[in-house]
């Protein structure tokens, strides 16, 4: 039977929990708040700890709930991340490149460009320019590499919604890169 020892929590787990959070919400101040909140919630529900899991696993499970709560909150604030599914079947332009911009030629699309710091900064500012819900979904999937079903569950969207959002985010990023980088 495991016992809780809250006085040692900070030394033992705070770094781990903090990094775990930071990797998922990518905001320093916010991560601190979430970790703090987690410890306080854990204290409150310490009675319910049954010793079935280790202390750390138990704390992480509380932390996960807090992170999901955070995503839920911003999702409802910005309106549900839901868009109409209109990939294949709309009007005369069905399955055509017309309504989207035809990809332009990108000069310099070489591997070594990937290391270019300026290009990195450009993609950062392009991601920041995305509408908030597109940016959120795109970052969760592409940068934090969270699985599709997990994102769908947490944000309460369907997987086709998710793919439409990702596609639109990519289209906007391409446009942004074309305007600010390749055709400058």
């Amino acid at each position: 039977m495991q016992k809780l020892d809250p006085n040692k929590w900070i030394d033992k787990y705070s770094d781990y929990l903090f990094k775990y959070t930071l990797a998922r919400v990518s905001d320093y101040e916010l991560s601190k708040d979430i970790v703090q909140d987690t410890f306080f919630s854990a204290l409150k529900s310490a009675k319910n700890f049954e010793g079935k899991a280790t202390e750390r696993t138990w704390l992480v499970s509380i932390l996960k709930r807090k992170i999901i709560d955070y995503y839920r909150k911003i999702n409802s604030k910005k309106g549900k991340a839901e868009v109409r599914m209109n990939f294949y079947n709309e009007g005369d332009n069905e399955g055509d490149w017309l309504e989207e911009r035809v990809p332009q030629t990108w000069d310099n699309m070489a591997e070594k460009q990937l290391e270019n710091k300026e290009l990195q900064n450009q993609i950062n500012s392009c991601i920041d320019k995305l509408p908030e819900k597109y940016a959120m979904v795109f970052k969760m999937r592409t940068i934090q590499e969270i699985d599709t079903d997990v994102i769908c569950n947490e944000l309460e969207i369907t997987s086709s919604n998710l793919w439409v959002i990702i596609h639109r985010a990519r289209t906007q990023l391409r446009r942004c890169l074309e305007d600010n980088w390749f055709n400058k």
Partner: protein
Amino acid sequence: MFKKLNITCKQAVAICDKSQYKEATFFEKTQLNIHFLCCKICTKYSKQNVFLTKLCRNKSNDDKKKQISLCMTQGEKEFLKKEIEKRYVKE
């Protein structure tokens, strides 16, 4: 059978997006590759899409490297420690 292999540009683009996250099925990838044979625009799109993915992945690796060095400061930890002690005694 041949009808199934024939896809529109929009479908091709959708598959291309999915395959960036390794979520396209083998059949979808076959459809996509056959589409590439007859559509230069989608071929170009796909190449650029791969480039975009790599760029984002680079960024994510960069972020991770930065994060390793980031922690809560000692002061913040001490503060949190005291708070926990206070609350724990009360319980």
